[in-house]
């Protein structure tokens, strides 16, 4: 089962390697990982998407807790958190495809962020389903390149000390 885990860590060199090493050393897989500073510059937040049965997830959470630089680990539950991912897609832009790209961006509230004689580069943010749908719809148009950030997530409303 997939899990989204938020890990608050001290913003120090080597912490990412410790977290990543914990996963690799124990044979746990990371589907996506995003990390950046929080409102407190001494603290960073990692959003990790991983998978495993209950026992594996329990071990992952306990092992993360055990790292000295980890301040807090939150296993986010389905439906109780917001998540977003950013994707940049460079897609072939021809006379026929341009209107379709524009239409898709309108529907998915995406933006065209770069234009060249043969390509459009678009930016879309959203949940995983939306990103998947955009990519599926754009694939027939001729995707040249895709970069994704991986998921960032946050509990809704007043949970988690709000």
């Amino acid at each position, binding site marked *: 089962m997939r899990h989204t885990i938020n890990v608050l*860590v*001290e913003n120090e*060199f*080597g912490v990412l*390697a*410790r977290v990543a*090493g914990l996963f690799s*050393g124990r044979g746990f897989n990371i589907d996506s990982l995003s990390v950046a500073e929080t409102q407190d510059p001494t603290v960073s937040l990692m959003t990790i998407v991983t998978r495993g049965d209950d*026992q594996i997830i*329990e*071990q992952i959470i*306990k*092992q993360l*807790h*055990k*790292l*000295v*630089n*980890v*301040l807090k680990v939150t296993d986010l539950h389905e439906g109780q958190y917001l998540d977003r991912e950013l994707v940049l897609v460079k897609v072939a832009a021809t006379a026929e495809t341009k209107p379709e790209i524009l239409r898709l961006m309108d529907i998915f509230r995406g933006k065209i962020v770069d234009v060249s004689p043969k390509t459009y580069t678009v930016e879309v943010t959203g949940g995983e389903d939306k990103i998947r749908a955009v990519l599926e719809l754009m694939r027939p148009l001729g995707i040249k390149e895709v970069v994704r950030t991986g998921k960032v997530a946050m509990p809704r409303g007043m949970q988690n000390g709000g």
Partner: protein
Amino acid sequence: MERTGAEIFVESLRKEGVHTLFGYPGGVVLNIYDVLYDSDIRHILVRHEQAAVHAADGYARATGEVGVALVTSGPGATNTVTGLATAYMDSVPIVVFSGQVPTHLIGNDAFQEADIVGITRPCTKHNYLVKDVRDLARVIKEAFYLARSGRPGPVLVDLPKDVIVGRAEYVYPEAAKLRGYNPTYEGHLGQIKKALKAVHESRRPVVYAGGGVILSNASRELTEFARRLRLPVTTTLMGLGAFPGSDPLFLGMLGMHGTYRANMAVSHADLLVAVGARFDDRVTGKIDEFAPNAKIVHVDIDPTSISKNVQVDIPIVGDAKNVLKKMLGLVHGPEWEARDEVLREWHAEIEAWRRAHRMDYGQGEDVIKPQYVVEQLHEATAGRCIVSTEVGQNQMWAAQYFRLEEPRCWLTSGGLGTMGYGFPAAIGAQAAFPDRVVIDIAGDGSIQMNIQELATAVQYELPVKVAILNNGFLGMVRQWQELFYDRRYSHTRMDVAPDFVKLAEAYGALGLRATRPDEVRPVIEQALAHPGPVLMDFHVDPEEGVYPMVPAGAPLTKMLLL
């Protein structure tokens, strides 16, 4: 007042109460060695950095204090990895300081540079690269605190040359403040009560104690708990000495080379109270059939150990000593009386297992049995000594036949199984206790992995007694080849071995040899009477095996008894 990094280092060690340091100098740590020259901290120069870490580890296990090692950068640092991994697996509190090239050269493939923080990340509890001399005192404080608190473990501190020679105002922090690190010492009272209810309801209980009992100095509490409630006790390899070996409640060791009665008792138990033990695969055998009928209570300071290998019914996260104390405080009153009566049948059953298969070996008149050597060592010292072991058959025979009565007298690499551990660990323990008898029970294979430390023992007048159970084989591997590889002894015969007596003499130690059973005791007596280090070469039966044995992956009830 401003001080150099080297001065800060030495002063901070003194503040941590460090008396003894095991190390090996090199280019980037010369300034530290220069300060040590005038210090009252005793530095023991080993002959290989791996031995420095094992010695610090042996020192720590024997004393309960933090062991310390100091090495130089690059190869000096990388040679510590086996020692760190050994200490990590067995939760031993040590701090290893490694020199590092100056910060401006880090990452440039400078001479004798190694990313030791990267290399040791998975085998340390935590590690540091000190990038600024102003952080040094705080980092040392944290390193010692992390090593000895919670579930103890090794910490590495990497010291670049410019940090060692740099200057900073020296203030040693009173306490370490680590906001993400808060070990749980107190067990949850509700869980403790639940566990006691389970004990009360059980009819076939077994206490299963691990190295955590020794680490938390909880042997007395464990012993009292078991005796008061008449609970049979088995231990892991690491837990030997946590409960008196001569106590009638003691079942002996559990697992692959555990006793018949211990393995049978656990397999038939209705309750297992695991304290400071982590259900290693060498203990559980086939995991699905481990303690199949037992409700499991697990006391451990490390939450990751709980329900990692076996599903636990009543977890208690906390320090073993605190938890056992709380339990002892609650087992008064009429409902806890007459436990003997309640458990009579169970004890009778265990007694029947005890009689059915006693540990034995047939000592004849011609060939020395290795078990006999171990028993004679025990007898000659009345068990009042510190025993270290190497890894393999020697380790298992020592575990089976050297009856330990007390904690912190047993130094063995349980988790990692490090050959070459025992001798330097014995040196570390002997450095801590110069007046005690320290014996390393070794194999001819293992002893050759760190035999150069004979020079260290001689130089510092550390009178360690090494008993080599010399069978000319990598014995345990040979035993597996015998049992599971059709006696195809592929590369386990040590056809060429040194003359250990001459070798000891070459180093300035005493060398003794026994080739017949009647020579065993006199050799031991002579070794114990000698004031310096001794190498005893016992030529033992080359094909003797360690039994009982549970084949890897088999259930505990399927023991090969032979």
